């Protein structure tokens, strides 16, 4: 089984990779001439649905690219010391590129510098890092905050009180989103953030806070940093079904509620934060390994979606068979090539190809 896999990848190797190996000698392990790129992944938050999907996107895209022999994923709940150890472990395993979702923007820099010095391409995904000679692939979080705020302001007729439910105080994405959010809100003098809370990006805590804080007439709109559907659920009981607009992300259940509750007057504003940004990071990693020039910052530009304007798109984003907190964006134009089924299969190039259809 492994032989046939190698044979099929060898076709790609013949047309693209072998020629590359000549130009990029030293990057690809010369001892294994027929094999292609080895990709390492370091993820500091395991057991989180969004991160799992990000890893699956990397695997699926790597399999489809035909240029990757193996994806090594080191994924666990760890601190910076642990993640640095993971990065060093990937270096010794001889990977050609490391895709890292870093828990800290600078604490892993020494390990990352070692990787860069060893000729390894380092791609930071989702969370930015300050280490030099690395590439960033992430959602534009400032634009994320601004897009949702602008759509919320419009849905609130530019007046009223906002319940502002942020993520983790001090986290890079939270700070960036706040910058975007504030830049929009300050334009409208009749909009007031009367309550600001941190959900810690935790579904349960977000739901508890919404239950505690929502009361009829108290707020006219809610902005969430992605902890969205528990807030809508709380409205069903706390506001007796009198919905106020909510900004959320492309979480499957929130997408479903935005569609199904539209007829009951609910305005859901979806600002995608695709987990499959991992697939985009893989594409950028391969481009870099192929010797193409890649930008230092590759940002996705999120756009706010409402059911009134984007009905067909929102309907297509809902996957009944997937989990509530599945990140519903399943394709990124110019970056990813997998089908939803291939993403769900979550298969790396070295995995048993039996399940391939």
């Amino acid at each position: 089984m492994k032989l046939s896999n190698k044979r099929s990848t060898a076709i790609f190797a013949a047309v693209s990779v072998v020629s590359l190996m000549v130009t990029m000698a030293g990057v690809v392990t010369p001892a294994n001439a027929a094999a292609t790129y080895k990709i390492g992944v370091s993820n500091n938050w395991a057991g989180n649905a969004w991160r799992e999907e990000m890893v699956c996107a990397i695997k699926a895209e790597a399999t489809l690219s035909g240029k990757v022999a193996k994806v090594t994923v080191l994924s666990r709940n760890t601190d910076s010391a642990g993640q640095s150890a993971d990065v060093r472990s990937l270096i010794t395993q001889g990977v050609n590129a490391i895709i890292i979702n870093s828990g800290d923007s600078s604490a892993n820099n020494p390990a990352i510098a070692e990787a860069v010095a060893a000729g390894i391409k380092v791609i930071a995904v989702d969370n930015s890092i300050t280490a030099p000679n690395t590439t960033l692939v992430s959602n534009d979080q400032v634009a994320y905050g601004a897009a949702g705020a602008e759509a919320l302001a419009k849905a609130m007729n530019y007046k009223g009180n906002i319940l502002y439910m942020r993520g983790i105080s001090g986290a890079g994405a939270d700070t960036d989103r706040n910058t975007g959010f504030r830049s929009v809100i300050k334009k409208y003098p009749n909009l007031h953030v009367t309550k600001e809370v941190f959900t810690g990006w935790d579904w349960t805590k977000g739901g508890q806070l919404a239950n505690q804080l929502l009361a009829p007439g108290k707020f006219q709109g809610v902005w969430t940093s992605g902890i969205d559907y528990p807030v809508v659920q709380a409205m069903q009981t706390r506001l007796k079904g009198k919905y106020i607009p909510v900004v959320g992300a492309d979480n499957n259940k929130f997408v479903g509620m935005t569609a199904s509750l539209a007829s009951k007057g609910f305005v859901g504003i979806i600002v995608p934060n695709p987990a499959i940004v991992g697939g985009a990071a893989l594409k950028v990693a391969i481009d870099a390994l192929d010797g193409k020039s890649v930008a230092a910052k590759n940002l996705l530009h999120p756009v706010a979606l409402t059911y009134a304007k984007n009905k067909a798109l929102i309907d297509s984003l809902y996957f009944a068979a997937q989990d509530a907190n599945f990140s519903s964006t399943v394709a990124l134009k110019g970056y990813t090539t997998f089908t939803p089924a291939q993403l769900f299969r979550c298969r790396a190039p070295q995995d048993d190809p039996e399940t391939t259809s």
Partner: protein
Amino acid sequence: MSTIKTFVGTRLTKSMLSLWAILIVLFVITGLVDHYFFTVPSIGVTFQLAVPLGLLAAGQTICMLTGGIDLSIAMIATGAAFIVSIKSPSGLGMALLYAFLFCVLIGTINGLAVGLLGMNPLIMTLGMNAVLIGVFTVGITTFLKGSSTMPDIIIKLSTATIIDPLSWPLVLWLLIGSAVLFLLTKSGLGRLIYAVGDNATAARLAGVRVWKVQLAAYILCSLFGGLAGLMIGGQSGAVSMSLADSLVLPSVAAVVIGGTSIMGGIGGYTGSIMGTLILTVLSYLLATLNSSEAVKQMIYGSIVLALAWTYSKLTEKS
């Protein structure tokens, strides 16, 4: 035994008054800060959100009366919620049965380790907590994959209002609370729990099978934890690893504020109910204040410490 009871009785009347005073003061302050607080639905919600903590405190009270403590209670709650979430598509009854068995299993392990092997309850349950965190961290990507929401019926039972401010969770709490009070004050097991906590050696010499009492205490505690977990999941509509994390300290604090001795043998559930209500109003008050999370945490911790300290001073004098 009768001396213990009268001792507890005189303490309770005096200390109860001070607990009521603290609760009313906090209530008024919260109302002044947030004028939405003094509406009937809002008070109903506050009571409703107090129920999970009240259930956790019930378990913790029973454990602490035997001289023990259960620090794995939050992860037991999380586990029960995970199990019901993942099993409910194949029938709610089976899902609840699995969650029940899970709670009994963990309670049994905790109880046997403390009762028979003589392990320190703090170390035992903290260890159990770490083990469960590990199991669920692995499970969330494998055998627990997809457990993120609660079945609708549990969401309804955890949030539905009958007539403001009376809600289904509150009714449940009234029933369970009465049962716990009956268990502790009127039943044979209740007397044994006090006896073991007061002096385990004396209880053993009097012919009490101490380990059996401890086993029962940890199983009951575990079951209350599981029930609380389902209710937290139902109220927030979502299940996650950190479901009940933030309630571990409050579950112990509510019991201590309520006057139950951490050494065992003294106290009761009435005090824990007051402690629960005080901490719930306090957390509402802090959620209303527009201050940073860190400041809120400091205020919360300081008030809990101050309450526990003043309370122990107050009751010492009497």
